[in-house]
């Protein structure tokens, strides 16, 4: 019978997808049928289904459309058809976010939720809670309490889950239902137990004592629901992690006992928790590891995946334990699920010993062509880590990488290989020639423009320093003949580098550049002409400043300033000096990058390039009166905290340095809920020579908000040594007591108060911007005409060269060049090369020769066009 009906329906639809060609307007049109006096479920249900399908496909309704259809839908409450009613609930939930006046259905839903029909009750509660707000909640509170402890598990679960959703907007109301939730934890139904535990924990999570009690009670009670046990394990693990209790505590015993639970889900959760706990000792690890080991051999991919992912996470913290499972992991390398195989490989690479590298690489080679790009990137990153760990193995790894480079692959994959080769070259000078040769070969046949450009740039930088620079020129010039304009332009720049660094090649390069001047593309011709004429001058200093080491300005700032310049009506030429220099990413940012490597998480879409700190603040600062006149922002220092973080008022200072002024930005946070602060300012006692020009107080500082006050100071004129100084600082403000809940002051009158802050220092580093000199030696030679100062110091407090290097860099605030910040192991002497720019655009170059005997002896040579600056640096070190 029913099949007959279905056949008929098919004929009507033409056998295809009945939802294929539906349109928003038609469906809204059809929804008018809801308004008919007698509701026909057979007609209304399909229309409602179509509407929900459309919304699910991502169609959006306007507020009016949504409201209209919502009101029409409320008519359907007349029908007693179960499915139709349930679809109406779904519709209410979907439309509640868009439509107006959704609370109109509250009474209908309340009726359903308290009614006799069990089919309605649970779903009605969930629908009701999606349209309720904090004020409405009071009205239905009684029903919710009853529902939580209802005998019907579906009703109870629905009430608990909805309560948890509602803690987002009405935490205080939901908190009052804690007794009911407590009762529900004892339910026989596994899901009710799980939901009740979740709600209870959420209500109490800020109260440590209550959580402890909860855990103590529940660990004894043996919960039925595996989900609830997993939840409990997580809560317990969290307690253990925060607690200083030893592992003998009942908490740990509980987690360990869960390893023997009959549900796989719980076993894994417990093993995962134990392995990830910081305090776990090796002995305690054994049972957890053996569970994971068992899972590695399971027939279910998910179990294997879970186990190997956990191993991967802890490979660094417990290498020995993971190493004991190496055999199981090696079996997984050939797993049919590539995610598992890749995780296994990377785990092995993390824990592997030098002797096993060759074998592992062979194994990877067998399957690398089969896996997706995303996982290839992970493998490449693991290889990079390996290369840094075992520099002696570079031969095998390099060969492997070059083979991977030749394979098919997307940009991201190829870029990560090139990156890895570049890292290896930088880290291990022995590999430079081999690496460059591989890269040269790669650009012969590279379809990714950006990558080819990068490699050409690298060739230009590194090629001239090799023994036989001429061999690279062929590769570079080939690009000029064969490629698209942007690559040709990059090749021209690279050739110019060779010309500038290798005098014996200059003549040939000039010939090649002359040919490039006939190029069809503007940019290529321009560059060729530019370089050709500079090289024609045979002037070393011109080479340095325009070919080898062009000024590195911040591109975003340059863009902004050029835009301003083109709008302004001025005849003055654009001053490139006014553009702030590109900030060098701080080591922290690098570290963050490193950390994410090797994790098997493909990053989502790339984030927009971060704007430099200076650029960020420059905009904010320029909005403040009196600051525009100071000129361009030179440097912004890191944040300094002037109070402990948990005091009444939390103050942080950021120093913005201009060529003759410094702006101190104080970010203040008021942590007292019963106070409103007004006219907040920082009173400074500047050291000698400094002059306070202006103070910009923060007019109002309510509870838990951050306000900013500024002080503008002028550096001591013609007195550089005094520019390094310590200021006393006091926070001054007017206090008005206020009502903690409303934040409104009790009276109009406040009283003056003050708060001592820690002293603030202006250091040498604050006045210096780091500059990355690619070719430090050339710059040094060029600076021979500058003032040179030299002095010898003994740094008796330093015990190693490494420590000395770190301290000097931090103290002077200069950028180390040519990787001299890394001291090769086992050496007693080291030369540190530094570069930077003093405020006002005065270049500084520093060479520090260090020798280790008892303590560290340092010979410091400073070159700078300004003798005061040079003297300042030599004197500051002492």
């Amino acid at each position, binding site marked *: *019978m029913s099949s007959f009906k279905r056949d008929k329906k098919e004929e009507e639809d033409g056998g295809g*997808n*009945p*939802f294929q060609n539906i349109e928003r307007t038609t469906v809204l049109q059809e929804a008018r049928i809801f308004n008919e006096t007698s509701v026909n479920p057979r007609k209304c249900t399909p229309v*409602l*289904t179509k509407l929900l*399908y459309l919304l*699910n*496909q*991502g169609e959006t309704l306007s507020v009016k459309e949504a409201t209209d259809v919502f009101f029409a839908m409320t008519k359907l409450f007349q029908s007693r058809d*179960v*499915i139709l009613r*349930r*679809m109406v609930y*779904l519709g209410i*939930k979907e439309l509640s976010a868009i439509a107006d006046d959704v609370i109109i259905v509250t009474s209908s839903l309340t009726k359903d939720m308290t009614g006799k029909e069990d*089919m309605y009750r649970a*779903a009605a509660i969930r629908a009701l809670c999606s349209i309720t707000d904090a004020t409405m909640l009071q009205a239905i509170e009684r029903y919710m309490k009853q529902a939580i402890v209802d005998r019907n598990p*579906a009703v109870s*679960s*629905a009430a608990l*889950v909805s309560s*948890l*959703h509602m803690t987002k907007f009405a935490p205080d109301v939901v908190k009052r239902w804690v007794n009911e939730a407590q009762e529900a934890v004892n339910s026989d139904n596994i*899901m009710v137990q*799980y*939901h009740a535990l*979740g709600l209870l*924990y*959420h209500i109490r*999570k800020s109260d440590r004592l209550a959580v402890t009690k909860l855990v103590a009670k529940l660990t004894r009670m043996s919960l039925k629901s595996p*989900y609830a046990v*997993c*939840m409990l394990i*997580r*809560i317990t*693990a*969290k307690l253990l*992690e925060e607690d200083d209790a030893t592992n003998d505590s009942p908490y740990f015993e509980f987690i360990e006992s869960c390893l023997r639970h009959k549900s796989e*889900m719980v076993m*894994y959760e417990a093993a*995962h*928790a134990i392995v*990830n706990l910081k305090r776990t000792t090796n002995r305690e690890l054994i049972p957890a590891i053996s569970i994971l080991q068992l899972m590695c051999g399971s027939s*279910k*991919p*998910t*179990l294997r*995946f*879970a186990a190997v*992912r956990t191993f991967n*996470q*802890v490979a660094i*913290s417990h290498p020995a334990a993971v190493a004991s499972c190496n055999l199981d992991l090696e079996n997984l390398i050939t797993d049919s*699920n*590539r*995610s598992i195989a890749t995780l296994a490989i990377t785990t092995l690479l993390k824990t592997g010993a030098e002797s096993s590298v060759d074998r592992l690489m062979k194994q990877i080679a067998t399957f690398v062509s089969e896996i997706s790009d995303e996982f290839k990137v992970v493998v490449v990153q693991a290889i990079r880590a390996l290369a840094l760990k075992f520099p002696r193995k570079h031969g095998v790894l390099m060969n492997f990488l070059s083979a991977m480079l030749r394979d098919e692959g997307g940009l991201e994959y190829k870029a990560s290989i090139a990156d890895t080769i570049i890292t290896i070259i930088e880290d291990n000078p022995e590999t430079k020639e081999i690496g460059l040769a591989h890269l040269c070969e790669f650009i012969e046949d590279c379809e990714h423009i950006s990558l080819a450009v990068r490699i050409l740039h690298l060739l230009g930088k590194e090629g001239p320093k090799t023994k036989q620079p001429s061999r690279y020129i062929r590769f570079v010039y080939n690009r000029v003949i064969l490629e698209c304009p942007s690559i040709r332009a990059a090749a021209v720049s690279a050739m110019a580098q060779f010309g500038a660094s290798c005098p014996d090649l200059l003549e040939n390069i000039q010939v090649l550049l002359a040919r490039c001047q006939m190029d069809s593309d503007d940019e290529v011709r321009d560059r060729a002409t530019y370089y050709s004429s500079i090289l024609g001058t045979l002037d070393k200093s011109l080479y340095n400043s325009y070919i080898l080491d062009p000024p590195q300005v911040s591109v975003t700032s340059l863009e902004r300033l050029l835009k301003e310049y083109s709008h302004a009506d001025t005849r003055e030429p654009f001053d490139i000096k006014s553009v702030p220099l590109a900030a060098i990413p701080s080591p922290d940012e690098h570290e963050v990058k490193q950390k994410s490597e090797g994790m098997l*998480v*493909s990053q*989502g879409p790339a984030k927009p390039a971060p704007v430099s700190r200076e650029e960020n603040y420059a905009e904010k600062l320029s909005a403040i009166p009196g600051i525009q006149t100071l000129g361009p922002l030179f440097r912004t220092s890191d944040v300094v905290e002037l109070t402990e973080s948990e005091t009444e008022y939390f103050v942080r200072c950021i120093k913005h340095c201009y060529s003759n002024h410094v702006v101190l930005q104080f970010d203040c946070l008021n942590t007292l809920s019963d106070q409103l602060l007004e006219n907040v300012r920082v009173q400074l006692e500047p050291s000698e020579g400094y002059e306070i020009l202006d103070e910009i107080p923060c007019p109002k500082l309510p509870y838990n908000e951050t306000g900013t006050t500024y002080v503008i100071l002028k550096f001591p004129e013609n007195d550089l040594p005094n520019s390094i100084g310590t200021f006393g600082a006091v926070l001054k403000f007017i206090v008005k007591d206020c009502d903690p809940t409303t934040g409104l002051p009790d009276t109009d009158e406040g009283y003056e108060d003050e708060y001592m802050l820690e002293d603030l220092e202006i250091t040498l580093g604050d006045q210096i911007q780091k500059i990355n000199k690619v070719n430090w030696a050339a710059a040094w030679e060029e600076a021979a005409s500058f003032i040179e100062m030299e002095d010898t110091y003994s740094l008796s407090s330093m015990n190693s060269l490494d420590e000395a290097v770190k301290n000097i860099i931090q103290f002077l605030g200069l950028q180390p060049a040519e990787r001299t910040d890394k001291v090769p192991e086992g050496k007693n002497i080291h030369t540190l090369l530094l570069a930077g720019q003093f405020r006002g655009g005065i270049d500084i170059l520093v060479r520090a020769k260090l020798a280790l005997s008892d303590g560290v002896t340092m010979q410091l040579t400073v070159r700078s066009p300004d003798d005061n600056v040079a003297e300042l640096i030599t004197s500051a070190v002492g």
Partner: protein
Amino acid sequence: MEGSLLEPTLYTVKGIAILDNDGNRILAKYYDKNVFPTAKEQRTFEKNLFNKTHRANAEIIMLDGLTCVYRSNVDLFFYVMGSSHENELILVSVLNCLYDSVSQILRKNVEKRAVLESLDIVMLAMDEICDGGIIIDADSSSVVSRVALRNDDIPIGEQTVAQVFQSAKEQLKWSLLK
């Protein structure tokens, strides 16, 4: 190793999707506002997910920082997504519940046309399995019992005499009306 311990929360599921064999969405829900907030991002993700999974029947994959478990049958692909730190076995239990519920609703006839014909019931089932990212139920028989099957959707053998009688009467009435 900070952060690798799981935060105790009920919000486990980041998304559920049913796609057809061209990778087009039949039904999909995302429960976390921070995970694919716009329809466009969701589409891109689904296309990507489908491309990576429709050939290899491997049950689990990591994509865009999510752990995705999946199952397929004929021309349908079922996916459950969770955070990359989530207990995979919990996600699989949700996936199995989804698949089994749909299978019971469609009387083991798990294919695209059948799903579209009973789309209303499948929607209700999805709603009963997961609400806003919280697992409501992971037992398929209890889910099916809650989604109120239509009388004529129960196989004849399992209907009571009265029900058969009722539906026969209704059929007759409808054929007379035509």
